[in-house]
């Protein structure tokens, strides 16, 4: 049973509550829903941070987009810079959970939940995002790639609060896409997902980031797949090679959502679609946001 509940209005209040052992809640879409499902009981002490003004807003700072911890999925989808320059994040944020999840769920909570099925996780990783963790003792900046250690686990200490996520804006000529296997059209959770961020200069691929979602204990990039694509013209053969390398590097589990065999096969399909869509977007073509539903029946 929850013993204390504090609603913080300043970052300092929030940090001292966290330092005293409280768990932060913003949208509540993981903590509260999880407790109701019996995954984990509500913590004894909770600090609500949804009224902390300092954690709000999206800002363009020195060539990077800085997302406050309280930025919702809905706000990300609506942001012009996100849609145009960080399109994969918009693809992902547009299909997280339900309308209610997207209106209520925050990027800070989503990142710290450390789910290998986090939709926006692959895009943030591929864009080289860093997060700011703050405590009453100070703050540090961590590469997202170093934050997640296992399903539900991060390197953050219990007294630290994620205050913002910094996403560097990519070079001109970059396109990106996040594609997920979707059994139904709404209220889905990632069973297999792939992100691609591709930079094309004069018909040649100069930079590639490819990441997998729900295919390993944490969301991670696949260097073998990136190597298969960089330096090529991004034609079908190169895309296929990158997709095959993605599937080969995947280590999915078998559960009620799908067998490991099927998930591995779908890793290839999702990677192929993500890379092809990223190249299309990088070269001036159009793929609707979100990409996933538009790609039903694609190659």
């Amino acid at each position, binding site marked *: 049973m929850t013993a204390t509940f504090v609603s913080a209005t300043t970052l300092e209040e929030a940090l001292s509550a966290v330092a005293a052992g409280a768990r932060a809640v913003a949208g509540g879409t993981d903590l509260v829903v999880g407790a109701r499902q019996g995954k984990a009981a509500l913590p004894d002490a909770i600090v609500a941070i949804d009224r902390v003004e300092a954690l709000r807003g999206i800002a363009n700072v020195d060539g990077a987009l800085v997302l406050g911890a309280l930025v919702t999925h809905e706000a990300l989808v609506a942001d012009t810079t996100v849609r145009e320059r960080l399109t994969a994040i918009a693809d992902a944020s547009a299909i997280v959970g339900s309308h209610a999840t997207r209106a209520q769920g925050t990027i800070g909570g989503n990142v710290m939940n450390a789910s290998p099925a986090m939709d926006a996780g692959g895009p943030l990783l591929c864009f080289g995002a860093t997060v700011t963790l703050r405590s009453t003792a100070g703050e540090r900046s961590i590469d997202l790639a170093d934050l997640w250690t296992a399903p539900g686990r991060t390197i953050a200490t219990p007294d630290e609060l994620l205050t913002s996520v910094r996403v560097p804006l990519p070079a001109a000529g970059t396109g990106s896409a996040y594609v997920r296997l979707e059994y139904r059209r709404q209220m889905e959770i990632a069973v297999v997902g792939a992100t691609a961020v591709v930079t094309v200069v004069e018909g040649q691929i100069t930079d590639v980031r490819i990441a997998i979602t729900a295919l390993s204990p944490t969301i991670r990039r696949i260097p073998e797949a990136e190597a298969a694509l960089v330096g090529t013209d991004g034609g079908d053969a190169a895309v296929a090679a990158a997709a095959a390398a993605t599937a080969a590097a995947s280590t999915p589990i078998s559960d009620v959502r799908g067998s490991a065999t099927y998930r591995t096969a779908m890793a290839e399909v999702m990677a192929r679609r993500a890379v092809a869509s990223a190249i299309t977007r990088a070269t001036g073509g159009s793929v609707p946001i979100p990409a996933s539903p538009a790609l039903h*029946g694609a190659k």
Partner: protein
Amino acid sequence: MATVETSPAAGAFVRPDGKEKVTGTGRYTADLSFTGMAHAKFRYADHSHAKVVKIDTTKARALPGVVAVVTQSDLPDVKFGGFVQDRYLFAKDVVRFEGEIVAGVAALTEEIAAEAAALIEIVYEVLPAITDFVSAMDEGSALVHTEWASYGRDENILSTGNTMAYHTIVKGDADAAMAGAEVVVKGRYVSDSSQGVPIEPRAVIAQWQGDKVTIWSSTQVPYAARAGVASTLEVPEADVRIVVPLLGGGFGAKCDLHFEGQVAALARAAKRPVKLVFSRQEEFVAIAQRREGIVMEFETGVTREGRLVARKARLVLDKGAYCGEGGFLGQMAAMHACGPYVIDNIGIESYLNYTNSQPSGSVRAPTAPQVCWGLEQHMDEVAAAIDMDPIELRRRTLIEEGAEGPTRQIFDQVGVKETLDKAVEMIGYGRDLPDDEAIGVAVGWWPCMPAPSGAYVQLNGDGSGTIITGAQENGTGAVMAMPKFVAGELGMQPEDFSILYQDTAAAPWDMGSCGSQTTFNSGRAVLAAAAEVREALLDAAADSLEADRGDLELADGNVRVKGSPERSVSIAELAGAGTVHGKGSGDVPEAPECDAGGCVGRLGNESFLAPQLITQAAHVKVDRATGVVRVLRVAAAHDSGRILNKLGADGQVYGGVVMGVGMALSEGTMMDDQGRQRNPHLLDYKLVTCSDAPEIDVEWIEYDAKNAGPRGSKGVGEPPQVPTAGAVANAIAKVLGTQVRQLPMTPERVWAAGRGVAR
């Protein structure tokens, strides 16, 4: 022949309970509370199959705030069950599935009740779980019920060991005809079980006053619940009153005695009102009402011209741990293995087998959607084997007036061929489509269920009226349409009437909201009661107007002389102090004559009274790389006789098709090797969402059906789900070039079938 036309009685009718439901002012069972009320929690079995050696409730009783703990040892030694009496309210000596209730606790808060339930100490002797419902019938298999032979049962139920009921449907000599058939086609299909998933998890509140108990319950069958409470607690039915506040959906999942007895026992022991509200997980696991899994093997002998000379089938159904009201499932499945087709010789066997898993029962058109899904794919395979278009094969073999049914019943007028032609026309069958899209067609049927009912209609002193019916509103709007019937009979307006319903102390017995029977039977009773009121009004008006009774008519709230509207008296005036009333039941239609002498296990479904007939055509798009299927459009043409409320009837089709799409593609209960559900929650039991709903077009084939219900109507609630999965399956098979032989046809299964991988 049937004709396509619009019934004059059809038209928009907005249900009177709609506003309170959509504005949130309506009260459901979980919304109610009473002074001094305690909260119930159940302790469920810790094993799927085990002997209960000892139950120690000492620690639970000692927990502060606990007001009652009840086990079977506190109750009469009475077993219950609709066709086989095989179950106690609380487990006595053996637990047989994960949701079996071993004990109940009532406490001052839900949290204390949950803590106390966990403190009950139970010593088990664990037994092997029998989970494979096919091998359960092997000789030498361990038994789910070792005492099965001693149970009370319906005299027409033939049981052996784990086979709770064995049924056959037999016509002619299927073996000989099969041996002589020009072409023989075999097909095996497997349907996983699924769930009804009403959005309202069930809730029960019981309150005793002296020796009488009032129980508020989210049930579809209040009279069956009353009978169950009376028998298991050994109290007279007159002392048990079941009231159903607004019901938040049922889909058949709330069709039985479910927990009213346990909560009443807790309330009696606690000497307080006691309330039980299920979590979503309990709603999945604890209910005795899952849609049964079925293994189906079909064999059809056919001429090259498409005459069905023989049909054999062997159906094995997963009954789960207990009978409940679902003892008839095997016979119903056998009739659906015949389908609405003319078949010369038939030999169908069905086995309804016990397992150590959740009991199955009547979820919307029980057994029909699964068997139709298998049979209609099999029919497409038969058509392919004789190189005939599957629509043409159906045109040549569907029943029509004068045709002979599976047990040689002779059909009256039926509109099934017209539903086929209409659905095919609506969907544009045969047009060119991209190679990842296709149209599939399936045909199904469902009987009208004749049953007694009773109702009262009374007129109040101000000329308004009250309809008192035992009918139960499950969300379909069937009860909500009754003011329209009565108003029509009495020349009044539907708004003049309120309905007193869902209260067993108010009205005579009714079967409840099941079997698509509310309009058919309860509607008949209400109309009969209205006719008595009409007679009383005519008598009174004849006196008052000094006119001949035969010259009078009821219109616009008055009784008047035909042709002389100035000679009239208002119904309000005739109602006087408010004592004008009528009662009625109407004559229950008789089952059609048939020759079922060769059939084993005759429970009444061996012939189909006034069958409802349905063709649906589904246009789907298959993502071959992933196996993900989207249903783009469904054309639904239905024969439900005369449509009395088109808005409501169309709504039943929309809902049924969407439920059918879910069953086709994503809704399946997965079980582990102990018969426990692996996905008892809405994250991984995938209902379809509004976004997944296809475009749905509905047409009704209407004519005056003989032997039908009020004003030529048949039932309408269950049939819409019957052929949807079959139509989707046939469309998928066309895209893939092979059948998907397991239901639900999940992306992984579609993908595997498309790759030719056996799974």
